[in-house]
């Protein structure tokens, strides 16, 4: 009850102090992050009210893949697709409005470079796009289908779950649509409201036969996307749309792959394990710093990267070490993927747990229009959850 009251007060105050969020974060993390994150530039008072709930934290420059170039998320996706079209003569990219470059500019320049029979628009029909993509894949060509927003993927749900995922199984390995990759922009964006902000990974996690992958930044995105394309299973690649412009890193120009089903430990720690994916990773990194400063708690941050099949070993190994687990995602809490992780971890690591596993997720409501700042699992809610776990 008290916690609920505290939550309401915090909720009420957060409106007033959201302008303080930006300045607070900036003063904590110094000028370096201020320079890197375009979200923290000087703003007027009205605009600061809509500051994003995270500060983008770029990866260090990868040195093992050759020369790098500064790219943001959509440019790294374009680079991956460019590499694919160049090396694989059967690759085709299709979807709504991809020809002129796509509504998020992920396919800019590809049609001019590779021709209109390799990069083409489809009419407005998600079910048709995915069904068509499955056919292309089964016949042997590499199909990269784009669904314009993850919120629109549901007409294609039957095709993905019933046709794509089960093809190899029901044909006894005679046919498969491993050449299919579906890309879709994913996650909250600040003003998307009900139909431009959804995170549907949990629906697809329930379907054996497909792989679901979510990157946290440009370097990961290019590597993971190339892995998905070369993977011999149908893959769904969700791209956090809020990071398309906000996430800028030095990305290798040559193709490279990052293995699927391998979670990455971003930061080692001894007291709490924090698991997240996509945009939420950047929130968690901030939370880890805050926990260290304010509570003296050392956090281990893990980016799950592949949702299905997920890396149980890395997460369980970490929980065995720390004894506490916090999982966070934007999707609603009931039936969200955190529930699966929580359940598996308590099975494997029951005796190692010092406190109940905590999930900080979206509410069980449709993604709201005006209430978005209250809905999203921001760093304060996560910090509160860590406090409870430490004091359990």
């Amino acid at each position, binding site marked *: 009850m008290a*916690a*609920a009251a505290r*939550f*309401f007060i915090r*909720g*009420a105050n957060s409106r007033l102090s959201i302008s303080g969020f930006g300045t607070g974060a900036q003063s904590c993390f110094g000028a370096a992050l201020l320079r890197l994150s375009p979200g923290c530039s000087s703003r007027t008072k*009205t*605009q600061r009210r*809509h500051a994003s709930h995270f500060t983008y934290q770029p990866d260090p420059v990868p040195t093992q893949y050759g020369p790098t170039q500064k790219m943001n998320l959509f440019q790294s996706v374009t680079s991956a697709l460019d590499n694919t079209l160049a090396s694989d003569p059967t690759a085709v990219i299709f979807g*709504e*409005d991809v020809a*002129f470059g796509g*509504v998020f500019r992920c396919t800019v320049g590809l049609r001019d470079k590779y021709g209109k029979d390799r990069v083409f*628009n489809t*009419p*407005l*029909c998600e*079910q*048709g796009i995915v069904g068509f993509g499955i056919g292309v894949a089964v016949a042997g060509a590499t199909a990269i289908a784009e669904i314009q927003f993850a*919120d*629109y993927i*549901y*007409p294609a749900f039957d095709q993905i779950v019933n046709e794509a995922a089960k093809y190899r199984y029901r044909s006894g390995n005679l046919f498969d649509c491993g050449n299919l990759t579906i890309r879709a922009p994913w996650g909250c964006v600040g*003003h*998307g*409201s*009900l*139909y*431009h902000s959804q995170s549907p990974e949990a629906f697809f996690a329930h379907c054996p036969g497909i792989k679901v992958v979510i990157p946290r930044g440009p370097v990961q995105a290019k590597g993971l996307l190339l892995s998905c394309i070369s993977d011999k299973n149908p893959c769904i690649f969700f791209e956090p749309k809020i990071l398309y412009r906000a996430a800028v890193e030095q990305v290798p120009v040559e193709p490279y792959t990052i293995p699927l089903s391998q979670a990455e430990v971003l930061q080692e720690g001894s007291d709490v394990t924090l698991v997240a994916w996509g945009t939420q990773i950047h929130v968690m990194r901030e939370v880890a710093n805050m926990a260290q400063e304010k509570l003296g708690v050392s956090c281990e941050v893990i980016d799950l990267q592949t949702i299905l099949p997920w890396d149980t070993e890395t997460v369980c190994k970490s929980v065995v070490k720390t004894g506490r687990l916090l999982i966070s995602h934007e999707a609603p*809490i*009931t039936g969200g993927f955190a529930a699966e992780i929580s359940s598996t971890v308590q099975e494997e690591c029951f005796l190692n747990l010092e406190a109940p596993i*905590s*999930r*900080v*997720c*979206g*509410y*069980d*409501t*449709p993604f*709201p*229009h*005006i*209430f978005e700042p*209250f*809905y999203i*699992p921001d760093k304060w*809610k996560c910090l*509160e*959850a860590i406090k*409870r776990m430490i004091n359990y």
Partner: protein
Amino acid sequence: CGTMLTNISNVLRACAQRNGAAAVISARTYADFTAQATFEVKKCDTHKLDEAPATEVVMTREEGLQYYRTMQTMRRMELKADQLYKQKIIRGFCHLYDGQEACAVGIEASINLSDHLITAYRAHGYTYTRGGTVKEIMAELTGRRGGIAKGKGGSMHMYCKNFYGGNGIVGAQVPLGAGVALACKHQGRNELCVCLYGDGAANQGQIFETYNMAALWKLPVIFVCENNRYGMGTSVERAAASTDYYKRGEFIPGLRVDGMDVLCVREATRFAAEHCRSGKGPILMELQTYRYHGHSMSDPGVSYRTREEIQEVRSKSDPISMLKDRMLSNNMASVEELKEIDVEVRKEIEDAAQFATTDPEPPLEELCNHIFYNNPPLDVRGTHPWSKLKSVS
């Protein structure tokens, strides 16, 4: 003098059903205006129909003024929304309807408020013609508690009595509309459902499923394809194998209508409504129209079409200008009168915008309300298991 008397008597007769006292006053003040006139409208192309809507239509002065006022209000409202969006007072998505006013007004003119209507996301115009007030619409755009959906829906999700929205996923509203029509038929209320979608959505599978069901069960539904030539940024030639959208229903009779002429739309809708109400089953109308703005506020609207094209449509086929010219050239209204209407409309919009900017946002409790129907109130799980919010319905 003789014609003057005939005109006065015409006005009195026309106004007989309305306020008698007003008719006498209006006869005295506006006696020099024509009470009604006959206009010629473009012939509609037909598909599987033996008859077509009339090409000579009658419009009275009152009707003309009402259409003018409604269209002008819609136009001003959309332009105000454009302004507020650029000032970041409206956020999120905003799909503007200016240029297409004749469609909404023409359709509403031939159906009753007891009939039903459903459309996709370009819904501000229909919300207004179906009974929403400008204040409610603008407050919904800015997400305030005075909004028509309590501020929880935003631009794409506006509803009012017998208007089912306001739907984000294109094509998904069409089977819904057929369902509404089935309910009407079942309950024997002689109502019909107007079910709108765009040229982009016309390629969705669900629509063809709906055509089949509607024709099979002879549902009283008027399918309306608002063809504004571009599905977001894709022109119709590049999206559809057949751009004769009125023929796409195949076994459903179809009409192709000039959607920039409010009288043509009105006449076609009257024809279609009669077809439905007489139990002949569904009918499909393609309204050829145009939108001046881009797909939404984040689309400049000029990367896939030329400014000259927009200018040409604005100067030659603008629905409000066309109506104004018709009324002025037939002496049905004076320039001053129309200007007065403009001034009133402007004031109404200003007041609504003021309200929309100053009304408070919905309270936090609203976040969890109306998820389910629940009595007693349900606990909604929040971000942690110990933070629960109540949901009421």
